[in-house]
């Protein structure tokens, strides 16, 4: 058509992006926060910490450097042994690790030796047994009892020095014994290992301790400041536009809400990337200055090529972080009526970001699963690239992290579009209109914000309840499930949602079709439990984390010690009802809304599944729990009822109980070591496929 562009959708997305970007870069506050603040902050932080760092490095060096030792000997052979040890000491040292800076061995009387030890004039006292020299030259073992000065009892460096000195004397004795027996010296040294290549640029011991911690701290700061880069632009882009009355001018154009959000995302993402670039540049420049300030002889221990490669990996993975941060900020601000409300809502997001980023620093946290967790994953992959402690290929971790970032961004943009189109948020007046005790207006289903709020509240309550709950699952399970139910009950009453539409406790379809769906759901749930155990065993072997193993043992004890119905009630029925009401009732309804589009339904299912996985607290089981949560979410949306989900969840949890009842504890433990038998997991796979097909067919007919 004349006067029209060929691709109006892309023109609209680019139009929104360039319009917003132009507005951002004309705003001095945005420029200051995103670009100038990082450039100034790292040097200030570095200056403040340089003194501390240099002191810490010097202290570490001092603690690890060799020190002189004074050893006093008493006993009949003290004189001879002192001369012998000093002779050995003079001929040793140099390249031997842990060799003292200087060795002084003096013969003395026992009372004088004790006095010198008590007054600090000697580091160690050895009272030699009878015929010590004779024993040393004979064929027996000479035992030396060493007493350290009181102030040096916990000095590991002194202990290492004395052990090394003892080893040197023992080596001398061995050679004397071999010579005395007329044997060749080669008898003592059957093999010598020599490397053809010289070791390159090993980090000095002091820096070895500081480098990973310093890298980790900088990465968390980088993640936090990059995410903050999207904070003000996102508020300005949506909540600010609502306040200024300009959002309507976008919503009445032919561009869809999702395209408007995409355009705004591109603008906020661009600013977040600028913030990342400014931060990265500032980190690089600051690091260059800090390296020049390192004590003499101290090296970073990383080649220029490796440094460039690590920096490239870090930047690549942080591009994903910038995208997720920009999308998260937009999603949250879309649900806010004003800039003030947006600021309030974004504060927990920044805290959550810091928490997730910080969690990647916990020792042992890493690998492919963590790489896919937003914020924690990017920091973890960047740290692995720089510190190099993982067995997984960095390229694989980078790929997983970027893919997960893309999926998270996609979901968050859908959520932002849904929130932006919410009439209640757009047109029902400012957020300050109600009093502090005013309840939200009645709704059919909760808003996404209410979904998040309840999720966070329940997770916090669950966490606190762990502090008071006993280890015995007879009490621990009702307390954790009670935490969910209590949060849910308070929020459902307070927020006045339509309980039938939110929780969907209805029979799925006609009597016969509904019954068929429930049977299929039971097969699907049980099959997923077996497949999950099979895959977990394949991925990790029989080893579980300590806490997961304790939990499993406690539950087996519960099942064996209590009447059978207690186990079924606590392990099968209670979690199936409470968790389904919470995750597939409240959270799924909140994220999906009343009549979700396909994209929103997928996003809602994935988000509540992630919350479901997080709720179960055991990292190794999270992938399995995530899949279960996603399947149960799909089932609830497909059937329009919570009942199939409850049945499937109950069947899933019942599998170990049935195995225990049928096969007994010994065979269950054998299976946990040897893995699930082939015929069992094949049957489970068939059950899953058939269950899925039946529910799909029956729910399609229902529609």
């Amino acid at each position: 058509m004349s006067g029209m562009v060929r691709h109006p959708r892309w023109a609209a997305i680019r139009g929104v992006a360039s319009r917003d970007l132009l507005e951002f870069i004309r705003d001095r506050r945005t420029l200051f926060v995103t670009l100038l603040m990082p450039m100034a902050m790292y040097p200030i932080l570095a200056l403040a910490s340089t003194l501390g760092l240099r002191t810490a490095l010097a202290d570490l060096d001092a603690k690890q450097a060799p020190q002189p030792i004074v050893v006093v000997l008493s006993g009949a052979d003290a004189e001879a042994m002192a001369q012998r040890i000093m002779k050995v000491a003079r001929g040793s040292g140099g390249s031997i690790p842990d060799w003292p800076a200087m060795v002084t061995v003096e013969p003395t009387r026992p009372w004088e030796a004790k006095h010198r030890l008590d007054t600090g004039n000697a580091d160690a006292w050895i009272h030699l047994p009878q015929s010590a020299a004779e024993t040393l030259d004979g064929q027996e073992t000479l035992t030396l009892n060493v007493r350290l000065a009181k102030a040096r009892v916990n000095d590991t460096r002194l202990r290492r020095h004395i052990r090394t000195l003892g080893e040197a004397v023992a080596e001398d004795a061995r050679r004397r014994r071999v010579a005395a027996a007329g044997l060749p010296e080669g008898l003592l040294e059957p093999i010598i290992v020599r490397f053809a290549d010289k070791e390159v640029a090993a980090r000095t011991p002091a820096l070895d301790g500081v480098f990973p911690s310093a890298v980790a701290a900088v990465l968390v700061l980088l993640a936090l400041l990059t995410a903050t880069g999207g904070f003000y632009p996102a508020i300005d882009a949506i909540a600010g536009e609502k306040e200024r009355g300009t959002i309507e001018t976008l919503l009445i154009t032919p561009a869809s809400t999702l395209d408007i959000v995409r355009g705004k995302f591109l603008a906020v993402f661009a600013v977040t990337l600028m913030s990342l670039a400014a931060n990265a540049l500032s980190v690089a420049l600051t690091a260059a200055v800090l390296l020049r300030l390192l004590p003499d002889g101290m090296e970073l221990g990383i080649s220029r090529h490796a440094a460039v490669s690590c920096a490239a990996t870090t930047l690549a993975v942080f591009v994903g972080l910038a995208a997720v941060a920009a999308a998260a900020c937009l999603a949250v601000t879309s649900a806010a009526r004003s800039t003030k409300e947006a600021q309030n809502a974004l504060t927990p997001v920044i805290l959550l970001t810091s928490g997730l980023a910080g969690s990647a620093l916990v020792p042992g946290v890493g690998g492919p699963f963590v790489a896919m967790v937003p914020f924690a994953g990017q920091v973890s992959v960047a740290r692995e690239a720089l510190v190099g402690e993982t067995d997984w290929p960095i390229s694989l971790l980078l790929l997983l992290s970027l893919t997960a970032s893309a999926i998270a961004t996609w979901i968050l943009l859908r959520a932002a579009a849904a929130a932006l189109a919410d009439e209640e948020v757009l047109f029902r007046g400012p957020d300050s209109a109600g009093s502090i005790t005013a309840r939200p207006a009645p709704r059919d289903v909760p808003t996404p914000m209410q979904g998040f709020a309840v999720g966070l509240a329940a997770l916090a309550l669950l966490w606190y309840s762990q502090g008071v709950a006993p280890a015995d699952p007879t009490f621990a399970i009702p307390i954790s499930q009670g935490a969910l139910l209590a949060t849910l009950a308070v929020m459902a009453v307070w927020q006045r949602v339509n309980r039938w539409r939110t929780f969907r406790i209805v029979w799925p379809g006609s009597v016969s079709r509904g019954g068929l769906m429930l049977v299929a759901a039971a097969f699907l749930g049980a099959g997923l439990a077996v497949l999950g155990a099979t895959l977990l065993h394949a991925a990790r072997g029989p080893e579980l984390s300590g806490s997961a193993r304790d939990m499993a043992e406690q539950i087996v004890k519960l099942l064996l010690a209590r009447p059978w119905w207690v186990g079924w009630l606590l392990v099968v029925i209670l979690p199936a009802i409470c968790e389904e009401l919470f995750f597939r009732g409240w959270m799924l309804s909140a994220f999906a809304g009343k009549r979700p589009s396909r994209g929103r339904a997928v996003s809602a299912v994935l988000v509540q599944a992630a919350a479901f996985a997080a709720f179960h607290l055991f990292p190794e089981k999270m992938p399995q729990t995530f899949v279960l949560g996603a399947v149960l979410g799909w089932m609830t949306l497909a059937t329009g009822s919570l009942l199939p989900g409850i049945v499937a969840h109950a069947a899933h949890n019942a599998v170990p109980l049935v195995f225990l009842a049928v096969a007994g504890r010994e065979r269950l433990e054998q299976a946990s070591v040897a893995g699930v038998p082939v015929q069992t997991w094949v049957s489970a796979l068939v059950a899953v496929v058939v269950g899925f097909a039946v529910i799909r067919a029956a729910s399609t007919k229902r529609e």
Partner: protein
Amino acid sequence: MIEVVGLKKHFRAADGSLVRAVDGVSFSVAPGEIVGLLGANGAGKTTTMRLLATLLAPTAGTARIAGYDILTDPIGVRRHLGYLSATTGVPDRLTPREVLEFAGRLHGLDRAAIAERSASLLHTLGLESCASRPCGRLSSGQRQRVSLGRALVHDPPALILDEPTNALDVVGARDLLALLDTLRDAGRTILVSTHRLHEIERRCCRFVVIHAGRVVAQGTQEEFSAEPGGLERAFFAAVEGSAPT
């Protein structure tokens, strides 16, 4: 052409009560007509206009704008509608020229069309002298004219203007209303709401009076003006004579 048929918008208030903001409104506006939508504050004028602009989804009923249904083809409606509300703002950090250019891009116009429409509108609206000044530094009248230009950039056949003269002084209001006359003469379909009855008394072909979400009176300009006391008296009679809700 704007055709509104049984349009309803109900929602729950914060106290849980059901608000019938628009409750079965029907009327039409023909091409080349300016129709005045009259009503007191809270009568449902703005909600009706937001429904027509597809910013809100109706509870029941529908409407067609230039032949496009607001339920089945909201994108088509937005392509053929210019909308300006009392709360519409302009971005402070963009210039009037940029506002018009970006609006053109969002409506899918190509570069040449945008340049031509922007230049024409800046001239028509008297904004040429401040075309490169940030909107944050313009007077409220100039800002309102920028808003109107933004609503007209894609040359829509239908216009919905919610209290367009609110922020304008007498001169500004006169110029804007004169522009509406020109647009009407060019065959545009125009629905306008205002509190200033005298401004539109002689310009509108017809009037629709809305009260408590319902149409309580509608008729031609001649019919309303024929009442003793003119439009104002006819308006009060319609509003005060309607059944309380």
